[in-house]
C-alpha cells in the first residue's frame, strides 16, 4: 500500500471519528451552536453533491438544482402541514416529488447541449420559483410555512424525534453519510464508468454503444434525488420551508461550493461547503457582506485552481506516488550489479 493511500485512509478515519464525536467534542471546544452549524453543513454539502454528480462526473453544468431541493423541502412541509403525514411518509413524499420533477424536467433538458442545458435548468427553476411565490396559499411564498415536527421513531411509549439535538445530528449525519456512500458505490460501478466516458467524450461514447441521452437522464434523476434528500432534511432541520430557497442564487452558490471543493471528487462538495459556511458564520457576526468573499473566491478558484481543493490534493498525492515509484526504480537499479 503506497504512502498516499495510507495518508488518505488515516485522514478518513480521523474525520469519521471527529464527526461521530461532534455532539460532545464541539460544545466542549467551541459552543453547542456549532453542532447545528455542522448539521447544516452536512445538509448543504449533500446539495452541493447533487451539482457535483452532474458536473464532475457527467459533464453537465446545472444551475437549477434548487428546484429539486425545493420540491424535497416542500414535499415534507406540505406533507406534514396539509396532508397530515407522519415523519417517514413525508420524507418519502419529498424524495419522490423531487425525483419525479427531475425526471419530467430532465426528459427535456438533457436533450440540449451544455450551454442551453445550463440556461434551461435556470429557466425551469425560475418558473417554479415564481409559481411558488404566487401560490402563497400552498407555499407561503417567500415567508414560507412552518410546521411542528412529528416524531421520527416511536417504539411503544417512547418517541425519538429531531427535537433532540443529538438525535437530530446523528440522523442527519447518518442520512448524508449513506448518500455519500451510495455515490461512492455508483462511481465505482459500470454505470459510473459510463458516466465518466460520456463526460470525457460524448461522441466516442455513443460510437461504442452507450445511449448518451438515457444515461444523462438517469444521472439527472439521481442528482434530483440527492437534492431532494437535502431539501427534505433541510425542512426537518428548520421545521420550515420557503420559496426563497428555490431561487437561482441558491443553485449558483452550490455550484461554487462544488467547484471550490473539487468537481469530480467524492469529498469535494463537503470540503467546499464547509469552507463557505464556516466563513459565512464567522464573518457575518462582524461583517454582513460575506457574499463578496464568495464571489472573489469563486473567481480566484476558477482562474488559478479549477480542480478545486480536493482535486489539487489528488494531484499532489499522485505526484508523490510517482516520485515514490521513480525513487524505488532508481534504488533498484543501484542495487543491481
Amino acid at each position, binding site marked *: 500500500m503506497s504512502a498516499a493511500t495510507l495518508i488518505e485512509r488515516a485522514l478518513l478515519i480521523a474525520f469519521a471519528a471527529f464527526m461521530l464525536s461532534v455532539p460532545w467534542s464541539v460544545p466542549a471546544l467551541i459552543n453547542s451552536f456549532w453542532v447545528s452549524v455542522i448539521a447544516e453543513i452536512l445538509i448543504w454539502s449533500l446539495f452541493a453533491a447533487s451539482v457535483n454528480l452532474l458536473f464532475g462526473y457527467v459533464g453537465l453544468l446545472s444551475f437549477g438544482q434548487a428546484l429539486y431541493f425545493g420540491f424535497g423541502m416542500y414535499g415534507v412541509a406540505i406533507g406534514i402541514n396539509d396532508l397530515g403525514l407522519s415523519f417517514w411518509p413525508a420524507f418519502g413524499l419529498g424524495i419522490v416529488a423531487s425525483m419525479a420533477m427531475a425526471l419530467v424536467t430532465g426528459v427535456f433538458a438533457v436533450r440540449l447541449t451544455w*450551454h442551453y442545458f*445550463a440556461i434551461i435548468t435556470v429557466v*425551469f427553476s425560475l*418558473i417554479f420559483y415564481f409559481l411558488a*411565490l404566487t401560490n402563497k396559499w400552498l407555499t407561503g411564498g417567500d415567508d414560507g410555512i412552518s410546521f411542528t415536527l412529528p416524531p421520527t421513531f416511536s417504539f411503544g411509549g417512547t418517541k425519538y424525534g429531531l427535537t433532540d439535538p443529538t438525535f437530530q445530528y446523528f440522523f442527519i449525519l447518518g442520512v448524508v453519510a449513506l448518500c455519500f456512500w451510495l455515490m461512492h458505490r455508483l462511481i465505482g460501478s459500470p454505470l459510473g464508468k459510463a458516466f465518466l466516458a460520456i463526460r470525457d467524450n460524448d461522441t466516442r461514447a455513443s460510437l461504442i454503444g452507450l445511449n448518451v441521452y438515457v444515461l444523462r437522464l438517469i444521472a439527472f434523476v439521481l442528482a434530483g434525488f440527492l437534492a431532494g434528500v437535502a431539501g427534505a432534511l433541510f425542512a426537518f432541520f428548520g421545521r420550515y420551508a420557503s420559496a426563497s430557497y428555490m431561487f437561482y442564487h441558491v443553485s449558483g452558490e452550490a455550484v461554487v461550493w462544488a467547484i471550490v471543493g473539487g468537481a469530480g471528487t467524492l469529498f469535494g462538495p463537503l470540503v467546499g461547503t464547509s469552507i463557505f459556511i464556516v466563513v459565512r458564520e464567522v464573518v457575518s457576526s462582524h461583517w454582513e457582506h460575506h457574499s463578496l468573499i464568495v464571489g472573489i473566491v*469563486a*473567481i480566484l478558484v476558477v482562474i488559478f485552481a479549477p480542480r478545486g481543493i480536493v482535486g489539487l490534493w489528488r494531484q499532489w498525492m499522485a505526484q508523490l506516488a510517482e516520485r515514490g515509484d521513480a525513487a524505488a526504480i532508481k534504488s533498484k537499479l543501484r542495487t543491481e550489479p
Partner: protein
Amino acid sequence: MEKLLLLAMNGLIWGLIIALIALGLAIIFGLLDIINLAHGDFFMVGTVLAWATLQSTGNFWLAFIVAPLIGFILGALIQRMVIQPIHNAAALSIVATFGLSLILQESVRITFGPTPRRILPPIQGTVPLFGIDYEIYRLFAAAVAIVAIGGFFVFLHRTQLGTWMRAVRHDRDTAIAMGIPAKRVYVLTFGIGFALACVGGVVAAPITTVDFRGGVDILPFCFMAVIIGGLGNLPGTAAAAILLAFLEGVIQSAASPTVARISSLVLMSAVLLLRPQGLFKGFAR
C-alpha cells in the same frame, strides 16, 4: 381599457430599453460563448452611476457619458483579468460571472447601502397620448433607446471594430488567419456589452428604482430576448425584447406581473426545446 393602454405603452418602452441591454448580452454570448450571469448587474451599475452622477454634479445628462465610459472600462478590464485567464473557459466562465455578480451586488450594497433610491425624471410632466396622460420622460427614454440601438447597428456595420466583431463571430479561425486580433476584439466586445447595459441603466434609472438588487429581474429577461430572438441574430434579439416586454405589459393588465413573467419563461423554454435557433430566423446573418 386605459390600464391596458398604459401598461402596453410602458411595456413597449421598457422593451426598447431591454433591447439595448440584451444586445450587450447578445454580443457577449455570441462572440465569447459566455453565459454572463452578471449582465443584469451591469445594468444595475448603470443605474447606480446615474444616481451618483446626479448626486455629485447635479447634472443627470452627464451620466449618459460617464456611465457607458466607466462601464466600458470595467468590462474590458474584467474580460482581460478575469475571463481570459480561465483555462476551461467554457463551463467555468459561468461560475466566474456568477462570482462577478455577487461582487458587483455586494460592492454596491457596501458603498451605497441597501435602501433603494429614486431619481426624479429630468423631464417632468405628461402629454396627452391616445386618450391618456403619458409621462414625457418615458417617451424620451424610448427615443434615447432607439437612437442608441440604431447607433449600435451603425457601429457594427460601418466601423472597423464592428466589422471585426462580425467577422470573429462568423468564423473565428478565418478571422485570425486574416490578421484580425481576436483577443483584442473579445476584450472590446465585453467592454461594449457592459457599456450598452450601462446606457440602459441610465435611461431606466428615473423610471425604476436604484437598488443593488436591480439587476436580478433584468437578467432572465435579457436571456429570454437573446434565446427567443435567436443566438447570433442581433435584430432578432432586439425585436424579441420589445415583443416580450409588450406582451408582458398586456398580460399584466389582466393578471399579476408574476404570471406575466411565468408565461414569458414558458415561452422561452418552448423555444429552447423546439427551435433553439430562435423565432426570428429570417433576419439571421
